């Protein structure tokens, strides 16, 4: 086989696969969302958006992302800079910090349920310290703040690792000379961080943020495990429409709304963290 066609032969399977299982389903989901059986219609969207649960689940999803992602970004940056200075035990610490990377959102939800449920470890600790006489039922509709906190903690616990890995790899690519030069000119550690690390880390930051923000809009199993119906989110509504209400068109409509939000944020992040042409390391 000639070398000219070889690359195309090699990429053909993936391309076909992604066309069939990635691009084509998007056409299908749009079709499903914009039709109820007879022609083009916005009924599905009207139907979905006028439901009383829609504004709540949209608000919950966005609030959760707004609370969790910035905190994770700061935490991941802190952990990445700490690791980059570490001399002994770096591998062990990195292994421990990246463990949540392999843990599913459902398992993370169950893990935090062990802490927050009525006979759980938080109650046990508080009663051990004499703060409470009998176990409190923490995750109920009377405590919406606590439900939110539990879900946010589980999300922070689970998904900071993915940002950490991308940022650690990114910091590894920044040449040491920049830091040495800055030190010669008497730049403080904080100055070095804001003037060297952050700007040169932009490509990694944007990848980490995009991945994380999209995951945040997809939040589902953690919420199901910890809040159940107490904390409706968009992905959970999609699931409900598909299974409880057997309304595929409505499920597709919410799916498209999630997609739209994800794409909007992706473009926003790409724009905000864009690297000027010719300014690569």
């Amino acid at each position: 086989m000639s070398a000219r066609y070889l690359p195309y032969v090699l990429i053909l399977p993936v391309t076909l696969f992604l066309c069939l299982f990635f691009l084509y389903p998007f056409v299908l989901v749009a079709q499903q969302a914009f039709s109820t059986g007879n022609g083009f219609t916005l009924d599905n969207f009207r139907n979905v958006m006028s439901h009383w649960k829609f504004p709540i689940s949209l608000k919950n999803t966005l609030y959760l992302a707004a609370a969790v992602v910035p905190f994770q970004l700061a935490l991941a940056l802190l952990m990445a800079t700490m690791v980059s200075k570490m001399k002994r035990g770096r591998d062990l610490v990195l292994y421990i910090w990246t463990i949540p990377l392999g843990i599913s959102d459902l398992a993370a939800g169950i893990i935090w349920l062990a802490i927050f449920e009525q006979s759980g470890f938080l109650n046990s600790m508080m009663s051990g310290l004499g703060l409470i006489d009998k176990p409190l039922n923490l995750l109920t509709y009377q405590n919406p703040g606590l439900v939110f906190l539990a879900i946010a903690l589980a999300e922070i616990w689970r998904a900071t690792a993915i940002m950490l890995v991308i940022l650690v790899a990114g910091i590894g690519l920044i040449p040491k000379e920049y830091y040495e030069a800055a030190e010669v000119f008497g730049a403080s550690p904080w100055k070095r961080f804001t003037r060297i690390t952050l700007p040169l880390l932009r490509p990694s930051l944007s990848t980490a943020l995009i991945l994380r923000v999209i995951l945040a809009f997809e939040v589902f199993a953690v919420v199901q495990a910890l809040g159940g119906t107490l904390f409706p989110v968009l992905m959970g509504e999609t699931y409900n429409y598909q299974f409880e209400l057997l309304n595929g068109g409505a499920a597709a409509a919410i799916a498209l709304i999630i997609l739209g939000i994800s794409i909007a944020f992706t473009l926003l992040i790409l724009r905000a963290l864009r690297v000027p042409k010719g300014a690569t390391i």
Partner: protein
Amino acid sequence: MTTAATNPPDARRAGRFVYATAVILLCAWVIVPLYFLLINTLSSPEAVNSFPKSFVPEFDLESLTFFANFAGMLNALKNSILVAGLTMVMSIAIGAPAGYALSRFDFPGKSTFRLLILLTRAFPLPLLALPLAVMFIRTGLDDTIFGLALVHTTLAVPFAVLITFSLFSGIPIELEEAAWTLGCTRLTAFTKVVLPLILPGITASAIFAFVISWNEVFAAAVLTIENRTLTAFLLQNLDTSPLHLKFAGGFILVVPALIFIFAVRKYLFAMWGIANR
């Protein structure tokens, strides 16, 4: 600077103390919740539902036995392993050739192809399960292991391409060229020179594909009804199942993840970091 100049040892010692404490606290932040799950898994159902909790496990296997005997659970576990195994094989078989092509050739359309791969990352992929559910019913793939594995492969294959791309790029083309001059064909040069060097990396990315599939909840729950995977089965029974069943199930979900992350830790950064830029 001035304080550091007047009493450098004290300030430095204090700084080192704060730093070490922060590292230890962050490690505890990751490990302690996992330890709580372990306690609950290794305690009897009575202990799991009682209050207050003991902070040491009693090493009782009753919860795990209950989990194993719960109707449909072992079947779900088997399904999870099968789907993840299929996903692993398919994503490497389809993804690795493309990774090789990206690392070795410059060809028209290369940037478009890379864009298609990167584009998949900017979409909430599990949502694809919704339209595919309809498509699968038409083709008879609904509620099958293979159908779900196809969707999970869509999730895993972009990673497989990018990871193998960065792995192949790490092997100088000169090695292959030397093999060609010594009488190897393109294929034998690949199998005799490149493959042995790349195999550990490929294994690591295959393991990663396995974990992606093993952990996936939404698509699994949408696409399977009779042949539930473990995640889908646990999700479906969240409202009704007793606590000890949830914790044992969560534990079974976590264990492979712990082993796999340990197995691939050397490749973690080549896989997630550089490949992602």
